[in-house]
């Protein structure tokens, strides 16, 4: 089993989908023994307070399942909007892109294991 789960969100989620994603991800963390979750939101054009809360929830849930979460690929306009909205996503690790996110995850988990990680790609697309 791989160490990381990679999730790319390809569409603007409506609430039910976002809640499903939250539940599915936590289940997958447990099923795959993942130590890290990388969420690519580069295709997401709107993050409102609900989506922000879901992202925060995923991070805290993964955390208590002993996995770190990194959100990558946020569009500049989304970042500007989030700050003005008053939702700075505290406690959520972020990186500019997938590569940097992977590096961040590796450094957080402390790659003390001998062999290089196998990445377990799990694309959730709707």
């Amino acid at each position: 089993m791989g160490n990381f789960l990679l999730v790319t969100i390809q569409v603007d989620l409506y609430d039910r989908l976002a809640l499903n994603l939250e539940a599915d991800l936590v289940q997958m963390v447990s099923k795959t023994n993942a130590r890290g979750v990388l969420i690519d939101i580069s295709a997401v054009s709107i993050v409102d307070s609900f989506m922000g809360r879901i992202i925060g929830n995923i991070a805290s849930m993964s955390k208590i399942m002993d996995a770190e979460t990194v959100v990558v690929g946020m569009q500049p306009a989304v970042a500007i909007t989030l700050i003005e909205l008053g939702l700075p996503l505290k406690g959520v690790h972020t990186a500019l892109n997938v590569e940097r996110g992977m590096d961040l995850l590796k450094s957080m988990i402390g790659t003390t294991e001998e062999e290089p990680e196998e990445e377990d790609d799990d694309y959730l697309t709707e």
Partner: protein
Amino acid sequence: MIISLSKDNVQVVKEQDVVLLRNRVKEVAIKIKMGLVNQTKLITAASELLRNMLRYGGGGFCLIEIVSKGRDNGVRLTFTDKGPGIPDLSLAMKDGYSTGRSLGLGLPGAKRLVNEFDLKSKVGEGTTVMILKWANG
């Protein structure tokens, strides 16, 4: 003096309508050449208000208008529901206050993202929220 150039009234009853309506708002924003950052702010504000309308107002209508004032064009959105109304408007506009289990950012957050914001509510009759974003605002 603000003139309305086009009107489109959309009913919102279920959460899937939120995504649909966001797309409609995006279309009109692009039509008046609103920049991407302003578009994102407008749609995010709309998203917050739609969510409020669904959760507290039991759904309602959103009037999408292209408006103009002199040389400026903008998008005006008016959300109307026949829900229970908001008893204390100033409390509802406070950051972090929520009667639901949300973050309490919806109303004050939406206000920060747009150029004009107007909230009217009568207990037992419903709530109307108007937001306006200028293309270059």
